[in-house]
């Protein structure tokens, strides 16, 4: 296990007089794509800010690679290079004059020499598929999807072991959504980077995750495989979430007496399953 949350609590929200995180425990394996889902205010963002010690828990702790990251002598600066956070709004993360300079910022901060910095920035931009002709334009002139790629490259240039993506596809059209999520998948498949995805899109979560953690009012509500989590439609709806549309269609068919498997999360699998059941 790469990352373990051990009875993590964070008491901060004096206004609402409640715990933002309340006794949350789970573990994430190396090389997994894990999704964290939950309603607005369920504690997801606070939780991911604990992963690289941007936030300090009131109780409990996090173990990364077997070590307690909130121990006094733990090297949290090194941790922040290992666990890269990509925030929701690219405009909050981008600030340099050119795309290339922006991506160089992280590795420069790690104290690497210029040559290594430039090599890493180049590799990271190539990895996410940013074309050479965009390297010297201002990041602010890019489209929303391109900006997202550049922010991901900025974090990748630090060669993280874990990449945390907070709502990486919000506001993007279907084509860009797929492109960004495929970057994450490729990083896991080719480089073994562990991916932690925070998302409101049940479709995306179902399609890409190995494992899903469901948060509700600061507590962990569910924790399991895609099948295990999306089997719990009622619990998810009570927690302001939902199941993917294809799954809802299969459940409706099942209610009508068709003996279909409801563990289906996209149109192609739905079609396969309906054809199998109707035998055509």
């Amino acid at each position, binding site marked *: 296990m790469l990352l373990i949350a051990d009875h993590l609590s964070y008491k901060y929200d004096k206004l609402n007089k409640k715990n933002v995180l309340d006794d949350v425990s789970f573990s994430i394996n190396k090389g997994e794509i894990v999704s964290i889902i939950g309603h607005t205010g369920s504690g997801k963002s606070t939780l991911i800010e604990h992963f690289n010690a941007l936030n300090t828990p009131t109780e409990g702790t996090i173990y990364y690679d077997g070590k307690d990251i909130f121990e006094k002598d733990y090297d949290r600066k090194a941790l922040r290079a290992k666990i890269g956070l990509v925030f929701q709004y690219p405009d909050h993360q981008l600030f340099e004059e050119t795309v290339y300079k922006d991506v160089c910022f992280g590795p420069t901060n790690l104290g690497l020499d210029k040559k290594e910095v430039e090599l890493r920035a180049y590799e990271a931009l190539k990895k996410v598929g940013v074309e050479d002709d965009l390297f010297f334009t201002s990041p602010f002139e890019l489209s929303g999807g391109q900006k997202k790629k550049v922010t991901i490259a900025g974090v990748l240039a630090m060669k993280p072991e874990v990449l945390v993506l907070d709502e990486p596809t919000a506001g993007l059209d279907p084509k860009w959504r797929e492109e960004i999520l495929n970057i994450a998948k490729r990083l896991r498949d080719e480089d073994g980077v562990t991916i932690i995805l925070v998302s409101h899109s049940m479709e995306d979560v179902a399609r890409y995750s190995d494992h899903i953690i469901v948060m509700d009012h600061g507590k962990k509500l569910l924790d399991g495989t895609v099948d295990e989590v999306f089997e719990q439609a009622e619990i998810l*709806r009570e927690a*302001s979430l*939902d199941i993917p*549309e*294809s799954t*809802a*269609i299969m459940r409706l068919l099942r209610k*009508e007496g068709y003996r279909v498997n409801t563990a289906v999360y996209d*149109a192609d699998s739905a079609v396969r399953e309906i054809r199998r059941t109707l035998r055509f």
Partner: protein
Amino acid sequence: MNKLVKTQDVTYEYVRRDDDGNVENIVNAIEGINISIEEGQMVAIIGHNGSGKSTLAKHLNALLTPTEGTVWVDGIDTSNEEKVWDVRQKAGMVFQNPDNQIVGQVVEEDVGFGCENLGIKTEEIWERVADALKSVDMYEYRNASPNRLSGGQKQRVSIAGIIAMKPKCIILDEPTAMLDPRGRKEVINAIIRLNKEEKVTIILITHNMEEIIGADKIFVMDKGKLVMEGSPREVFGKVEELTEMGLTVPEATLIGKKLYDSGLPISLPVLTKEELVSEIGRARLSKFR
């Protein structure tokens, strides 16, 4: 019926300049757009990122005015600078991110903000604020602090702020993109209710096709041009064309199309889950009789 919004040959040029202020190139963000929207309709504008749909939307309440062509809102030419505020009172706009739109410390205060700017009497403002909050089912939160609300609640407060100005039309630019599933449902239900019960004309921009199955009309934008317009059934019947433009269709529509293509004789297009299930039942009987 009354044409509430009408555009004629609208083109908007976007000039890109280099660091020294010299013109680098000129791009038509939208080009030759002709649309008309009748009073009381709920219409949707769809298109991939950068297709020009937001640029078009910004023309409908005079946030942008056309480089060429004309936009009329309730008969007013939006290029008439003296009438800008009349246009904006008639056509209010709600944006994607609720956090950037809320200004008040208390919900009520936030909702009344626009009315205050219109110079409406205090007593009437309170009345309008109460009605507006009721219309989006947020009245019980009138004394709450906006930053304690969920995304869906904040977005409904933003909508109430527009409603309080008694517009004829609300333009919503991806109002659900940042919300969790429940927030999305709350906002869409509020929008549909405003349209059906209060007869407010709705112009909804979205990537979520399930949200616009019930729309009166869908406009499809691609590369700055209007490439398709019609009822949801007409538009979503063209699955291949939409896919080619990088757009999706409702999941039930897609599954229906794929089943049809693999030989199940169902009538296309299917729009809802329920329709799909009953079509599968019907097709099964006819095919396997």
